[in-house]
Protein backbone atom coordinates (compact mmCIF):
# COMPACT_ATOMS: atom_id res chain seq x y z
CA UNK A 1 0.00 0.00 0.00
CA UNK A 2 2.66 2.42 1.03
CA UNK A 3 4.74 1.47 -1.96
CA UNK A 4 2.00 2.44 -4.37
CA UNK A 5 1.77 5.84 -2.74
CA UNK A 6 5.53 6.17 -3.07
CA UNK A 7 5.19 5.39 -6.74
CA UNK A 8 2.66 8.19 -7.15
CA UNK A 9 5.03 10.59 -5.41
CA UNK A 10 7.91 9.48 -7.59
CA UNK A 11 5.83 9.94 -10.74
CA UNK A 12 4.80 13.41 -9.71
CA UNK A 13 8.21 14.62 -8.65
CA UNK A 14 10.15 12.94 -11.43
CA UNK A 15 7.94 14.39 -14.10
CA UNK A 16 7.96 17.69 -12.28
CA UNK A 17 11.62 18.06 -13.16
CA UNK A 18 10.75 18.50 -16.79
CA UNK A 19 7.32 20.04 -16.37
CA UNK A 20 8.46 22.81 -14.11
CA UNK A 21 11.08 23.85 -16.61
CA UNK A 22 8.80 23.72 -19.59
CA UNK A 23 6.06 25.70 -17.92
CA UNK A 24 3.47 23.12 -18.87
CA UNK A 25 1.94 22.86 -15.42
CA UNK A 26 -0.50 25.59 -14.66
CA UNK A 27 -0.15 26.00 -10.92
CA UNK A 28 -3.15 28.23 -10.56
CA UNK A 29 -5.45 25.68 -12.12
CA UNK A 30 -3.75 23.01 -10.05
CA UNK A 31 -4.11 24.84 -6.74
CA UNK A 32 -7.65 25.90 -7.37
CA UNK A 33 -8.80 22.44 -8.38
CA UNK A 34 -6.77 20.79 -5.69
CA UNK A 35 -9.00 22.38 -3.10
CA UNK A 36 -11.89 20.51 -4.62
CA UNK A 37 -9.92 17.30 -4.83
CA UNK A 38 -8.70 17.47 -1.25
CA UNK A 39 -12.09 18.31 0.17
CA UNK A 40 -13.52 15.51 -1.90
CA UNK A 41 -10.89 13.11 -0.61
CA UNK A 42 -11.66 13.99 2.98
CA UNK A 43 -15.35 13.48 2.29
CA UNK A 44 -14.53 10.21 0.62
CA UNK A 45 -12.69 8.86 3.62
CA UNK A 46 -15.64 9.79 5.76
CA UNK A 47 -18.20 7.90 3.74
CA UNK A 48 -16.20 4.70 3.38
CA UNK A 49 -18.20 3.32 6.25
CA UNK A 50 -21.46 3.67 4.35
CA UNK A 51 -20.57 2.63 0.84
CA UNK A 52 -19.19 -0.62 -0.45
CA UNK A 53 -15.76 -0.04 -2.08
CA UNK A 54 -16.37 -2.82 -4.56
CA UNK A 55 -19.39 -1.03 -5.93
CA UNK A 56 -17.52 2.25 -6.12
CA UNK A 57 -14.66 0.53 -7.90
CA UNK A 58 -16.98 -0.74 -10.59
CA UNK A 59 -18.55 2.67 -11.02
CA UNK A 60 -15.13 4.25 -11.25
CA UNK A 61 -14.09 1.67 -13.80
CA UNK A 62 -17.11 2.47 -15.92
CA UNK A 63 -16.39 6.17 -15.68
CA UNK A 64 -12.84 5.53 -16.85
CA UNK A 65 -14.00 3.42 -19.77
CA UNK A 66 -16.36 6.14 -20.84
CA UNK A 67 -13.57 8.69 -20.46
CA UNK A 68 -11.26 6.57 -22.56
CA UNK A 69 -13.80 6.53 -25.33
CA UNK A 70 -14.52 10.23 -25.06
CA UNK A 71 -10.83 11.12 -25.00
CA UNK A 72 -10.30 9.78 -28.45
CA UNK A 73 -12.94 11.97 -30.01
CA UNK A 74 -11.34 14.97 -31.53
CA UNK A 75 -12.53 18.10 -29.86
CA UNK A 76 -14.40 20.62 -31.91
CA UNK A 77 -12.95 23.65 -30.26
CA UNK A 78 -9.22 23.67 -30.08
CA UNK A 79 -8.23 24.98 -26.71
CA UNK A 80 -6.35 27.82 -28.28
CA UNK A 81 -9.59 29.14 -29.67
CA UNK A 82 -11.73 28.78 -26.60
CA UNK A 83 -13.28 32.01 -25.54
CA UNK A 84 -12.49 32.66 -21.89
CA UNK A 85 -15.33 32.76 -19.43
CA UNK A 86 -15.91 34.94 -16.44
CA UNK A 87 -14.60 32.54 -13.85
CA UNK A 88 -11.51 31.71 -15.82
CA UNK A 89 -10.60 35.35 -16.15
CA UNK A 90 -11.44 36.21 -12.60
CA UNK A 91 -9.26 33.45 -11.26
CA UNK A 92 -6.47 34.14 -13.77
CA UNK A 93 -6.56 30.57 -14.92
CA UNK A 94 -5.73 31.16 -18.55
CA UNK A 95 -2.20 30.66 -19.63
CA UNK A 96 0.26 29.77 -22.32
CA UNK A 97 2.77 27.07 -23.01
CA UNK A 98 5.58 26.25 -25.38
CA UNK A 99 4.83 23.82 -28.15
CA UNK A 100 7.93 23.22 -30.17
CA UNK A 101 9.07 26.70 -30.87
CA UNK A 102 5.83 28.60 -30.60
CA UNK A 103 3.96 29.94 -27.66
CA UNK A 104 0.35 28.88 -27.48
CA UNK A 105 -2.18 30.70 -25.41
CA UNK A 106 -5.18 28.98 -23.97
CA UNK A 107 -8.27 29.81 -22.03
CA UNK A 108 -10.62 27.81 -19.93
CA UNK A 109 -14.34 27.41 -19.86
CA UNK A 110 -16.88 25.72 -17.60
CA UNK A 111 -14.81 26.26 -14.51
CA UNK A 112 -17.52 25.44 -11.94
CA UNK A 113 -18.27 22.18 -13.75
CA UNK A 114 -14.57 21.33 -13.70
CA UNK A 115 -14.42 22.11 -10.00
CA UNK A 116 -17.33 19.76 -9.41
CA UNK A 117 -15.69 16.95 -11.36
CA UNK A 118 -12.52 17.43 -9.32
CA UNK A 119 -14.50 17.03 -6.14
CA UNK A 120 -15.89 13.76 -7.45
CA UNK A 121 -12.37 12.68 -8.37
CA UNK A 122 -11.34 13.51 -4.83
CA UNK A 123 -14.18 11.46 -3.38
CA UNK A 124 -13.07 8.50 -5.46
CA UNK A 125 -9.58 9.07 -4.13
CA UNK A 126 -10.73 8.97 -0.56
CA UNK A 127 -13.00 6.00 -1.07
CA UNK A 128 -10.69 3.80 -3.07
CA UNK A 129 -7.27 4.96 -1.99
CA UNK A 130 -6.22 5.81 -5.52
CA UNK A 131 -4.90 8.98 -7.07
CA UNK A 132 -7.65 9.60 -9.63
CA UNK A 133 -5.08 11.37 -11.78
CA UNK A 134 -6.81 9.98 -14.82
CA UNK A 135 -10.12 11.49 -13.87
CA UNK A 136 -8.47 14.83 -13.17
CA UNK A 137 -6.91 14.93 -16.61
CA UNK A 138 -10.21 14.09 -18.24
CA UNK A 139 -11.98 16.73 -16.20
CA UNK A 140 -9.55 19.40 -17.27
CA UNK A 141 -9.29 18.28 -20.84
CA UNK A 142 -12.91 17.60 -21.70
CA UNK A 143 -14.81 19.94 -19.47
CA UNK A 144 -12.54 22.89 -18.99
CA UNK A 145 -10.98 22.76 -22.41
CA UNK A 146 -7.45 22.86 -21.10
CA UNK A 147 -4.86 21.75 -23.67
CA UNK A 148 -4.06 18.09 -23.19
CA UNK A 149 -0.40 18.49 -22.33
CA UNK A 150 -1.19 21.12 -19.76
CA UNK A 151 -3.84 18.83 -18.28
CA UNK A 152 -1.43 15.98 -17.79
CA UNK A 153 1.31 18.17 -16.39
CA UNK A 154 -1.03 19.96 -14.01
CA UNK A 155 -2.66 16.72 -12.89
CA UNK A 156 0.80 15.38 -12.13
CA UNK A 157 1.42 18.31 -9.86
CA UNK A 158 -1.91 17.80 -8.14
CA UNK A 159 -1.54 14.12 -7.44
CA UNK A 160 1.83 14.82 -5.88
CA UNK A 161 0.13 16.98 -3.31
CA UNK A 162 -2.56 14.45 -2.48
CA UNK A 163 -0.03 11.64 -2.32
CA UNK A 164 2.23 13.61 0.00
CA UNK A 165 -0.66 14.10 2.38
CA UNK A 166 -1.43 10.40 2.40
CA UNK A 167 2.16 9.30 2.61
CA UNK A 168 2.77 11.17 5.84
CA UNK A 169 0.00 9.22 7.49
CA UNK A 170 1.26 5.95 6.04
CA UNK A 171 4.76 6.58 7.28
CA UNK A 172 3.51 7.11 10.80
CA UNK A 173 1.46 3.97 10.64
CA UNK A 174 4.37 1.95 9.37
CA UNK A 175 2.83 1.07 6.02
CA UNK A 176 5.88 2.06 4.02
CA UNK A 177 8.31 -0.81 3.62
CA UNK A 178 11.74 0.41 2.54
CA UNK A 179 12.69 -2.85 0.88
CA UNK A 180 9.65 -2.69 -1.35
CA UNK A 181 9.53 1.06 -1.82
CA UNK A 182 13.13 1.40 -2.84
CA UNK A 183 13.02 -0.31 -6.23
CA UNK A 184 9.59 1.14 -6.88
CA UNK A 185 10.78 4.65 -6.21
CA UNK A 186 13.97 4.37 -8.24
CA UNK A 187 12.28 2.78 -11.20
CA UNK A 188 9.36 5.15 -11.27
CA UNK A 189 11.61 8.16 -10.76
CA UNK A 190 13.72 7.21 -13.74
CA UNK A 191 10.67 6.56 -15.86
CA UNK A 192 8.86 9.72 -14.95
CA UNK A 193 11.87 11.96 -15.51
CA UNK A 194 12.07 10.49 -18.98
CA UNK A 195 8.34 10.75 -19.50
CA UNK A 196 8.28 14.32 -18.34
CA UNK A 197 10.89 15.26 -20.89
CA UNK A 198 9.08 13.44 -23.64
CA UNK A 199 5.89 15.34 -22.98
CA UNK A 200 7.22 18.49 -24.54
CA UNK A 201 8.38 16.67 -27.62
CA UNK A 202 5.61 14.25 -28.47
CA UNK A 203 2.59 15.15 -30.53
CA UNK A 204 -0.55 15.67 -28.51
CA UNK A 205 -2.60 13.29 -30.62
CA UNK A 206 -0.28 10.43 -29.79
CA UNK A 207 -0.35 11.18 -26.09
CA UNK A 208 -4.11 11.28 -26.21
CA UNK A 209 -4.27 7.81 -27.69
CA UNK A 210 -1.79 6.33 -25.23
CA UNK A 211 -3.71 7.96 -22.43
CA UNK A 212 -7.04 6.62 -23.64
CA UNK A 213 -5.63 3.10 -23.87
CA UNK A 214 -4.07 3.39 -20.44
CA UNK A 215 -7.20 4.54 -18.68
CA UNK A 216 -9.26 2.04 -20.61
CA UNK A 217 -7.10 -0.71 -19.17
CA UNK A 218 -7.27 0.74 -15.70
CA UNK A 219 -11.03 0.99 -16.04
CA UNK A 220 -11.25 -2.67 -16.96
CA UNK A 221 -8.99 -3.58 -14.10
CA UNK A 222 -11.14 -1.62 -11.68
CA UNK A 223 -14.29 -3.30 -12.84
CA UNK A 224 -12.66 -6.69 -12.60
CA UNK A 225 -11.38 -6.06 -9.11
CA UNK A 226 -14.68 -4.64 -7.98
CA UNK A 227 -16.66 -7.55 -9.28
CA UNK A 228 -14.35 -10.26 -8.08
CA UNK A 229 -13.92 -9.06 -4.58
CA UNK A 230 -10.43 -7.67 -4.66
CA UNK A 231 -11.76 -4.58 -3.01
Amino acid sequence: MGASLVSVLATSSGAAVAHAKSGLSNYRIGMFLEIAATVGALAGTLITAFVSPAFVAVVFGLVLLYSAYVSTIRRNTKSENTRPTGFANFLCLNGEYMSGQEVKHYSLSSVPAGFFVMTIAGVFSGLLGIGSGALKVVGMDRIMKVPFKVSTATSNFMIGITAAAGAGVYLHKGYIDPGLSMPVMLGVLAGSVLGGRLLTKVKTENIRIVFAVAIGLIGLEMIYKGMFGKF
Partner: protein
Amino acid sequence: MMNTTSSKTSQKYSEQKGEAFIANLVRLLVICAGIIVAGGGVLFILRLGNKQPGYHLFTSEPVSLMSVHGILTHAFSFDSQSLIQLGILLLIGIPIIRVFALLISFFIQRDWIYVVTTILVFGVLLFSLFGSAG
Protein backbone atom coordinates in the same frame (compact mmCIF):
# COMPACT_ATOMS: atom_id res chain seq x y z
CA MET B 1 -2.16 52.91 -18.89
CA MET B 2 1.59 52.75 -18.92
CA ASN B 3 1.56 51.73 -15.30
CA THR B 4 -0.72 48.76 -15.84
CA THR B 5 1.31 47.43 -18.72
CA SER B 6 4.62 47.71 -16.94
CA SER B 7 3.30 46.21 -13.74
CA LYS B 8 1.84 43.35 -15.75
CA THR B 9 5.16 42.69 -17.45
CA SER B 10 7.09 42.86 -14.22
CA GLN B 11 4.57 40.46 -12.76
CA LYS B 12 5.19 38.12 -15.64
CA TYR B 13 8.90 38.46 -15.16
CA SER B 14 8.84 37.66 -11.48
CA GLU B 15 6.51 34.77 -12.14
CA GLN B 16 8.94 33.35 -14.65
CA LYS B 17 11.84 33.81 -12.27
CA GLY B 18 9.80 32.10 -9.59
CA GLU B 19 9.00 29.18 -11.84
CA ALA B 20 12.63 28.83 -12.88
CA PHE B 21 13.68 28.80 -9.25
CA ILE B 22 11.11 26.14 -8.37
CA ALA B 23 12.16 24.09 -11.37
CA ASN B 24 15.77 24.03 -10.23
CA LEU B 25 14.81 23.36 -6.65
CA VAL B 26 12.65 20.39 -7.61
CA ARG B 27 15.40 18.99 -9.78
CA LEU B 28 17.89 19.27 -6.95
CA LEU B 29 15.57 17.59 -4.48
CA VAL B 30 14.71 14.78 -6.85
CA ILE B 31 18.37 14.08 -7.46
CA CYS B 32 19.12 14.11 -3.73
CA ALA B 33 16.21 11.85 -2.91
CA GLY B 34 17.22 9.52 -5.69
CA ILE B 35 20.83 9.30 -4.58
CA ILE B 36 19.94 8.69 -0.97
CA VAL B 37 17.49 5.95 -1.82
CA ALA B 38 19.86 4.40 -4.32
CA GLY B 39 22.63 4.41 -1.72
CA GLY B 40 20.36 2.85 0.85
CA GLY B 41 19.17 0.40 -1.75
CA VAL B 42 22.65 -0.79 -2.60
CA LEU B 43 23.46 -1.27 1.08
CA PHE B 44 20.19 -3.06 1.55
CA ILE B 45 20.85 -5.51 -1.24
CA LEU B 46 24.42 -6.09 -0.14
CA ARG B 47 23.37 -6.87 3.38
CA LEU B 48 20.35 -9.01 2.70
CA GLY B 49 21.74 -11.02 -0.17
CA ASN B 50 19.43 -13.78 -1.26
CA LYS B 51 16.87 -13.79 1.49
CA GLN B 52 13.37 -13.80 0.15
CA PRO B 53 11.26 -11.07 1.68
CA GLY B 54 8.06 -12.25 3.28
CA TYR B 55 5.71 -9.93 1.48
CA HIS B 56 2.71 -12.15 1.83
CA LEU B 57 2.69 -11.31 5.50
CA PHE B 58 1.82 -7.84 6.48
CA THR B 59 3.95 -6.68 9.34
CA SER B 60 4.27 -3.10 10.44
CA GLU B 61 7.63 -1.46 10.18
CA PRO B 62 9.83 -1.16 13.24
CA VAL B 63 9.18 1.88 15.37
CA SER B 64 12.47 3.50 14.47
CA LEU B 65 11.31 3.84 10.90
CA MET B 66 8.00 5.40 11.72
CA SER B 67 8.99 8.78 12.99
CA VAL B 68 11.05 11.50 11.42
CA HIS B 69 13.28 11.62 14.46
CA GLY B 70 13.86 7.90 14.38
CA ILE B 71 14.71 7.93 10.70
CA LEU B 72 17.21 10.72 11.02
CA THR B 73 18.99 9.12 13.96
CA HIS B 74 19.38 5.80 12.25
CA ALA B 75 20.16 7.14 8.81
CA PHE B 76 23.40 8.67 9.96
CA SER B 77 24.64 5.34 11.12
CA PHE B 78 24.19 4.11 7.54
CA ASP B 79 21.43 1.71 8.39
CA SER B 80 20.22 0.81 4.92
CA GLN B 81 16.54 0.84 5.68
CA SER B 82 16.65 4.15 7.47
CA LEU B 83 18.57 5.57 4.56
CA ILE B 84 15.84 4.53 2.20
CA GLN B 85 13.20 5.94 4.46
CA LEU B 86 15.13 9.18 4.55
CA GLY B 87 15.06 9.35 0.79
CA ILE B 88 11.34 8.66 0.84
CA LEU B 89 10.88 11.36 3.43
CA LEU B 90 12.62 13.72 1.07
CA LEU B 91 10.35 12.57 -1.72
CA ILE B 92 7.30 13.31 0.41
CA GLY B 93 8.76 16.70 1.14
CA ILE B 94 9.10 17.67 -2.52
CA PRO B 95 5.43 18.45 -3.22
CA ILE B 96 5.21 20.22 0.12
CA ILE B 97 8.17 22.40 -0.71
CA ARG B 98 6.69 23.06 -4.15
CA VAL B 99 3.46 24.28 -2.61
CA PHE B 100 5.34 26.45 -0.16
CA ALA B 101 7.50 27.93 -2.91
CA LEU B 102 4.35 28.68 -4.89
CA LEU B 103 2.91 30.41 -1.87
CA ILE B 104 5.89 32.73 -1.76
CA SER B 105 5.76 33.21 -5.50
CA PHE B 106 2.10 34.21 -5.42
CA PHE B 107 2.79 36.48 -2.51
CA ILE B 108 5.54 38.29 -4.37
CA GLN B 109 3.24 38.69 -7.33
CA ARG B 110 0.60 40.09 -5.04
CA ASP B 111 -1.81 37.52 -6.36
CA TRP B 112 -3.93 37.44 -3.24
CA ILE B 113 -6.60 35.08 -4.46
CA TYR B 114 -3.95 32.45 -4.97
CA VAL B 115 -2.12 33.24 -1.79
CA VAL B 116 -5.32 32.32 0.02
CA THR B 117 -5.88 29.28 -2.20
CA THR B 118 -2.39 28.01 -1.59
CA ILE B 119 -2.64 28.59 2.14
CA LEU B 120 -5.82 26.52 2.13
CA VAL B 121 -4.20 23.66 0.29
CA PHE B 122 -1.04 23.90 2.37
CA GLY B 123 -3.13 23.89 5.52
CA VAL B 124 -4.96 20.75 4.52
CA LEU B 125 -1.63 19.16 3.60
CA LEU B 126 -0.08 19.91 6.96
CA PHE B 127 -3.20 18.81 8.77
CA SER B 128 -3.25 15.41 7.13
CA LEU B 129 0.44 14.99 7.79
CA PHE B 130 0.61 16.05 11.38
CA GLY B 131 -2.96 16.13 12.51
CA SER B 132 -3.27 12.39 12.51
CA ALA B 133 0.06 11.80 14.17
CA GLY B 134 -1.65 11.79 17.53
